[in-house]
């Protein structure tokens, strides 16, 4: 097993449509293991094969708090998408950024697992969001094209005019709170 290098926004591999997986050979099994390891290592909740430079229809997802509930989806297909949710998401291929994206709130997806057994994965909220985000990668689509409003710098404080801060600060120290 090994960590793979994550391809970043601007890399043409991220704009291409991925190919169907015909059989789960050893190379594909290693890829799945590496993708899981890479996702956990970087603190992601999902990763698609093109993000590590492989144009195959494979994604891995784990939205659990403990990061111990992995889903491997081979040749996935959304068969139901309903409702709506609006919230922030980011992407390992667009480091340091976050943006607001509207997604379906409930999706059902059919796929094959790492042993090519047919499975169904149903998700709401974060899991539904992750399924949609990762499956978009297989079509060469990135979330940045869906962002409503600005693309934020993740975790970085918004820069404020210094004088403004100073005055605000004095006002606060001198008087009422928040």
């Amino acid at each position, binding site marked *: 097993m090994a960590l793979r290098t994550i391809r970043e926004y601007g890399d043409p591999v991220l704009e291409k449509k991925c190919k169907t997986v015909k059989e789960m050979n050893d190379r594909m099994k290693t890829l799945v293991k590496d993708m899981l390891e890479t996702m956990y290592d970087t*603190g992601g909740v999902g990763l698609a094969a093109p993000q590590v430079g492989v144009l195959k229809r494979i994604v891995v997802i784990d939205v659990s708090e403990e990061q111990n509930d992995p889903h491997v989806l081979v040749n996935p297909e959304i068969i139901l998408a309903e409702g709506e949710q609006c919230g922030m998401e980011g992407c390992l291929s667009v480091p340091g950024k976050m943006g607001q994206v509207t997604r379906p709130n409930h999706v059902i997806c059919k796929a094959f697992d790492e042993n090519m057994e047919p499975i169904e994965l149903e998700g709401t909220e974060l899991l539904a969001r992750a399924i949609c985000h990762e499956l978009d990668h297989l079509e060469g689509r990135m979330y940045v094209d869906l962002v409503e409003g600005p693309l934020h710098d993740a975790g970085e404080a918004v820069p*404020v005019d210094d004088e403004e*801060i100073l005055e605000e600060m*004095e006002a606060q*120290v*001198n008087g009422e709170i928040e």
Partner: protein
Amino acid sequence: MQTVNEREIVLRILLDNEQKGTYSHLLIREALDKYKDLPDNQRAFMKRLTEGVLERRIELDTVIDRFSKKPAASLRPVIRQVLRMGVYQILYMDAVPDAAAASEAVRLVKKRKMDSLSGFVNAVLRNVIRSRDRGELASLLEETSLSVRYSMPQWLIDLWEDQLGKGETKQMLEALLEVRPVCIRFAPEVSPGEREDLLCQMRERGAAVRPAAWLPYAFYLTGTRDLQDLPGYAQGRWTIQDESSMFVAEAAGIRGDEIVMDVCAAPGGKSMHAASYLKEGRVLAFDLTDHKVRQIRRNIQRMGLEDRVQAQVQDARVHVSQYDESADILFCDLPCSGLGIIGRKRDIKYRVSRKELEDLAALQREILANVVSYLKPGGVLIYSTCTINRLENQENADFIEKELGLVPDSLLPCLPEGIPGIEGPGQNRLQLLPHIHGTDGFFVARFRKLEAFRPADL
């Protein structure tokens, strides 16, 4: 896909606070605004972790120093802050599993391409967990000084022990570490019925509301986000103001026809409070800059007090003779060291210096000496600060009496019955203390200019 990592945001805030010196409460407010759509519990986690690391900094560093060969002070900033965050979660956030506190810390370090230090971070935090579990950490901390236990710089403890005594200081240090809830003031025209109605609606929106300690129209709000969206705020039925600062308008004993002058008024809480008691008079609210005056005006507008409050830019250190003998009531709520609001602005305690306390006391005296002539003979001056420091408070009250020639005027008829701590030659001074009064630390004093007042130098 990646989701918002709250710890990443907290780390960013702590680094900005440490490196750029931006005040933490401003950084927290910005982050909460920016991540408005995060679930409440994630936002609350971010806020608590940031504030916790700041308010316990000295204690956290002492724990780190116990388990790291290199002291916290000489670690790289990222590593130091990640360790502080980890130790705080382990010691003070029961909902965070120990293993998560450690593994998230490791992840933060790895993400910043400092893989070589992730083992060190992991080892320190694992040792903290083990030592806590064996009870060693508790005994280690018991043996440390008050400064470590309450994360208060030693010189401030010395100052307070000198001014208040040891016992009192210890109780106050304890109280200053408590989380202070937001306090709101209902406008006087809001009837008890309407107030109950609004409080009910706030509760329906998930807010916990309880009466404040002394004033019937003051309430504490907890468990809420986006106060401005709560019912009645936009309509000016209530505003945000700490109960302690409401004592200023109360101390003035307003009848309803006075001219009130507020020389350092932003953001306008006390001016609006005073105006809400006026039927005919009006309030002149001054502050130093356009920005502050705009802030006052926005608040006046929301509270529907445009006809009674006039806000304008005016430097309190500059004398304007047209205002001489024009005010019945003069509010001097002056810039101060803010030691009474450490429970809200957690980095104040690490920033002030002894020299600054002296400079502020001198600035306060400069302003007092400049504006005292604005008072009509027979008028009332209310001096207030949000600090706990004799130099800025009681000694400046002495200055007003001895040097400016005003006489002490009793607070007893104006303030809630039974309030402890009213002191001074004419029962005219009150130092509010968090462990006694349950408010922010705040000083208020009342003086009167005699009818036959003639300043010595005229």
